[in-house]
């Protein structure tokens, strides 16, 4: 279970970091979301993974640490608000700047000289 869990967190983090490094705002927003999913899973595991454990004492034979669950809940709420904000900001940037590149301007496009010649001819 631990190996699968760790692999999931790793994969999510990898995808999140990769998408954050993209040039357009939409992949960046997705990347930030994936990173926050990864971090939520990671935080949850910081209280050790345990099957059949209740977070409240006295309701089952074994119990699990309730604090990471509270932390994850807080992190989810905050992450959700931040994602909502960054989506709105990205849309506003699209409207203000006229494109969806994170730097506000598109990188110079490679020119296609041959096609132009044909049009002239």
């Amino acid at each position, binding site marked *: 279970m631990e190996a699968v869990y760790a692999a999931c967190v790793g994969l999510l983090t990898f995808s999140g970091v990769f998408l954050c490094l993209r040039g357009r705002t939409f992949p960046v927003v997705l990347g*930030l979301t994936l990173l926050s999913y990864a971090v939520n899973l990671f935080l949850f595991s910081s209280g050790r993974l345990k099957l059949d454990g209740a977070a409240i004492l006295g309701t089952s034979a074994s119990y699990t640490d309730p*604090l990471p669950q509270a932390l994850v809940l807080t992190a989810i709420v905050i992450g959700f608000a*931040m994602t909502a904000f960054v989506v709105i900001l990205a849309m*506003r940037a699209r409207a203000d700047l006229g494109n969806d590149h994170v730097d*506000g301007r598109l990188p110079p496009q490679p020119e296609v000289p041959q096609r132009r010649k044909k049009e002239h001819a």
Partner: protein
Amino acid sequence: MSEHLTILPILLPLIGGVLLLLPPLATTLERQRYAALTVAVLTLLSAGLLLQQSQTEGIQLYVLGDWQPPYGIALVADRLSTLLVLLTSLLGLVSLLYACAGDDRTGAYFYPLVLLQVMGINGAFLTGDIFNLFVFFEVLLIASYALLIHGGGKQKTQAGFHYVALNLVGSSLFLFALGILYGTLGTLNIADMSTKVATLTEGERVLAKAGGLLLLAVFGLKAAMLPLHFWLTRTYASASAPVAALFAIMTKVGIYSIYRVHTVIFGENAGELAFMIQPWIWPLALLTLLAGSIGALASPNLRELTANLVIVSVGTLLVSVAMMSEAATAAGLYYLVHSTLVCAALFMIADLISHQRGKAGDRFVISRKVRQPALLGVMFFVAAMAVAGIPPFSGFVGKVLLLQAAQNATEMVWAWPAILLSSLITIIALSRGGTTLFWRRSTDKSQADPASGWHIAAVVLLLLGAPLMVVLGGPITEYTAAAAQQLHQVPESLHLLLPGGES
């Protein structure tokens, strides 16, 4: 009442900010202004009283819901945090004063956002629990995102997206670090962590070190430490003046967190992990100073120049962190208060100059004369002397204290040239900028309105700090020395922070 004083600097701006969103106060700008100013003054008063109380009665521990630490949420008001809370409340008030002259008209919800930002910063300074540090970071960040784009415009949106995306990545790293530290130490209370960190086993120690260094990266991002400082110049230069002035404290929140986490948790008593950031922070501090200085020389306008001076001040403060001694921390605290006030003042002066110079703004080009050359000139001159560290103003005292704090030859060889050289470059950059702004001008008359009373009051309040911090130098340095002592001698205050704890 006095037992609840510790939470008032958080509660007052929170309640004030929420009330400002509701009908009786939200309807007219006039009401918003006076209500916000009242709340800011009350916050400042409570911060002053709290400082007084923590000075006379020792560290104040406020346990929410009476869940005794290390389990509940605790607020800790010691000398360091109350000093910074007072500074934040003052800066919030001044920034509101400046905005009353008209900057508040350019966008919605200015006053509630400033108050919520002050609440977040005060909370970050007062919390005694590292997860709540994260929560308050988010509170201050989300307020700052909205404040940054206050006023609108292409530049702000563009700078805003970079700032928001970087800080969201930073928040993720913060949570990763917290997860690692909770997994190894089993607690998130800062005082409790400091007792547990020495007892780790070999394997756990590696993890805790990774967590601690991740935290350094996160705080370095907030503080604009070298490889993570590129966002700062554009963000601060594009923000409107009262917002930029308030942001002057934001980098200091990062510095404060480094002081708190890496002196209390990973400080002297951390066993094998003691002072683990020192090999990293020395080169980073010096390179930050260098990068800020080069940026200052290359700046095309006064706002960017000031933003680069913020980076220089961060570099100087990181040098004080790197020395890891009581004297250096005390000097750093003095310098922190001084540089926050002066940089905030410079942002406001840059805004006043750019209003009065017409199209040229605050760019260093030949343009028409400013409307009030004497007033703005004196303000700029005082701020420039203070920030460069020329006597008789506070920058001089702060830098001398810091130079004195270097104890052995190695520290002197690295710290002295870096600090002195950055001061020299600051003088060059500011004198070059100042001569262009005030003396190289065309014959046109300025058509702009003179600066309003609100503006002048705000800038003068900030600039008064420069001579006052020298006149009151004795008591202030005594206070910062005591605060540094409290920060470094952790075991002596543990019985206050962990009543009934096993230690």
